[in-house]
């Protein structure tokens, strides 16, 4: 006879799903769950300083490992604090399971502390939200939550358990643990649809592939690379798809979708929403768009004409395409693109040699890139700094370059950094953050210090919300570091960059490198301006 409480059942259900890390912030409404996870072998609870950071870290875990992240937050204010993170994950299609405490059902409308209609609040920022009413159904609901997070287009799911439920007890043998099921379809498209897509690609003069997050979530890295190498079609990668084909692959043109897509005549778009960060899929020289997505509603979103829409798993579909299509004559097309890319790279290198004071952002990025290992994680967090980080840091491996979703959030990067450092101990993790974004969750460097995670925060400090020209002034963010037993440095001149970064990467503690960069730096030319129609 083993009697367990609700919190222990949550913990056991998470263990069955293979969960090793839970990001959270404690509270009275989740105590038994917290205690059970804290005391469980092979599980670790990572307590952060704000619930939004817990969600960001769960996102980061998913982005680093391809498995749903898990966060645990308390009732009412715990949930409202978590909302921004959930919305970010919803927009980015990032799978995570948010488990929340809740006030008692009996206390509803009675003025009970931390009472809120949480389900009503979270529904618009999650893909699935439920409350567990009966103790014995906890494992079933946890399993459902993981299936929902992974199924179709991934996303955040929410499960709440009232305090009276998690404190209740039950004989464990009376609880049924459901079978584990991977909901990812792996389903193949019909042969006729594949043949139509292949016909268009084989007739193209300037074919290209855009690989989005769906490639990463489907585990289709190898299938994509094999298709690219078999056909010779150039590829660009976007969002969580970055690194699924390494940027230094001869047929990969990194993130530079704007140069490629505005020249392509036939585009194979795999697991990439036709959204803001993809120019809403409007490409004037395009004759045909072939779109592959696990989510039917994504096909032709924003009234984009799609010649062939394939609803299916990215890996299965890419393998079908590879088995059907013949090698294409893309040598001249690829050589032209490579010449353009080389020209852009040359102009970037020229800017990166700038000795200007204040420091040109590209100089900072180039100095850092020189010091990074191939498996380093570089998290871009901010608005203006994305212009530099997106081109300065190649994605050699997937799960290493998380960035903004179309939710447009900032401040999430430190959560992603915590998760990456935990997922890949010993690897370099750099949080490239604007000074504005740094202010949101800088306190999480305390979390990094408590857990011994040597995250390097590089503050690209242009002294304001530069996208809006709202000044913040010179602030010495590096002086926060000693308070967290961390390392801090101020960098004002180019010659100070490398020593400061070398020290930060070697110190073994969290670091803050505060770099005063140019507020209105010159960008670099080298973009497609036609004509090639």
């Amino acid at each position, binding site marked *: 006879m083993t009697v367990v409480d609700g919190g222990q059942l949550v913990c056991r259900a998470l263990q069955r799903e293979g969960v090793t890390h839970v990001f959270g912030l404690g509270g009275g409404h989740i105590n038994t769950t917290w205690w059970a996870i804290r005391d469980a072998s092979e599980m670790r609870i990572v307590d952060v300083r704000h619930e939004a950071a817990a969600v960001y870290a769960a996102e980061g875990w998913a982005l680093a490992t391809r498995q749903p992240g898990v966060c645990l937050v308390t009732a009412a204010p715990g949930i409202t604090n978590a909302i921004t993170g959930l919305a970010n994950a919803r927009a980015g299609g990032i799978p995570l399971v948010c488990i929340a405490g809740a006030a008692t059902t009996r206390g509803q409308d009675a003025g009970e502390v931390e009472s809120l209609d949480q389900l009503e609040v979270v529904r618009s920022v999650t893909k699935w939200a439920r409350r567990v009413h009966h103790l014995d159904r906890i494992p079933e609901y946890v399993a459902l939550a993981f299936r929902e997070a992974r199924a179709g287009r991934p996303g955040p799911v929410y499960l709440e358990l009232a305090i009276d439920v998690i404190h209740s007890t039950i004989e464990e043998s009376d609880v049924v643990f459901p079978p584990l099921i991977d909901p990812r379809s792996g389903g193949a498209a019909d042969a006729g649809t594949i043949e139509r897509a292949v016909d268009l690609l084989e007739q193209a003069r300037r074919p290209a592939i855009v690989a989005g997050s769906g490639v990463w979530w489907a585990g289709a890295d190898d299938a994509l690379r094999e298709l690219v190498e078999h056909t010779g079609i150039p590829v660009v990668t976007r969002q969580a798809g970055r690194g699924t084909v390494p940027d230094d692959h001869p047929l990969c043109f990194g993130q530079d979708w*704007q*140069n490629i897509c505005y020249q392509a005549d036939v585009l194979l778009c795999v697991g990439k929403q036709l959204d803001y960060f993809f120019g809403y899929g409007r490409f*004037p020289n395009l004759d045909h768009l072939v779109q592959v997505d696990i989510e039917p509603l994504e096909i032709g979103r924003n009234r984009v004409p799609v010649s062939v829409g394939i609803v299916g798993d990215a890996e299965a579909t890419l393998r079908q395409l590879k088995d059907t299509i013949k090698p294409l004559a893309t040598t001249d097309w690829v050589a032209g693109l490579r010449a353009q890319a080389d020209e852009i790279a040359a102009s970037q290198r020229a800017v990166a040699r700038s000795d200007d004071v204040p420091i040109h952002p590209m100089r900072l990025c180039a100095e850092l890139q020189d010091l990074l290992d191939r498996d380093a994680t570089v998290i871009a967090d901010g608005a203006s700094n994305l212009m530099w980080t997106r081109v300065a840091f190649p994605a050699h491996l997937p799960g290493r370059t998380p960035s903004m979703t179309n939710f447009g959030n900032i401040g999430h990067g430190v959560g992603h950094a915590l998760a990456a450092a935990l997922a890949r101990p010993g690897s370099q993790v750099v949080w490239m953050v604007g000074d504005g974004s740094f202010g949101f969750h800088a306190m999480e460097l305390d979390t990094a210090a408590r857990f011994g995670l040597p995250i390097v925060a590089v503050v690209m400090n242009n002294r304001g919300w530069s996208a809006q020209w709202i000044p913040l002034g010179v602030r010495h963010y590096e002086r926060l570091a000693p308070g967290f037993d961390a390392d801090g440095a101020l960098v004002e001149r180019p010659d100070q960059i490398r020593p400061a970064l070398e020290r930060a990467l070697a110190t073994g503690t969290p670091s803050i490198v505060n770099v005063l960069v140019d507020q209105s*730096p010159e960008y670099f*030319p080298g973009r497609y301006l036609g004509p090639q129609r």
Partner: protein
Amino acid sequence: MVDVDLLRRARDTVPPRLNAGLLFGEGGFCVLGWLLHVAGFHEITVFGNTIAVADPARGGAATHVVANTYGLPIEVVESLAQLNDRTPSAERVAAITARLDELLAQVSPA
């Protein structure tokens, strides 16, 4: 039909600095970004983009969007953008203003 009034407004308000390679960012607008801005495209449609105008109704490649919005031949817009990107920053505003003057003189002789 060239929208002369719009083109003149753009010429008359060219900012003191133009960026190269980016429609709009920390370094301000390039000529394409400026022409779009004057035509009513808000900052979010062009921010941080090299060529993409992210507008679900009127978006696309900036050269095409500018050509359609101003009634200019695409080749003229491409040439203007190339002039922007190939001219050193210190000379860029003067060069672009001069080209816009030429265009206005062609479509609206004094």
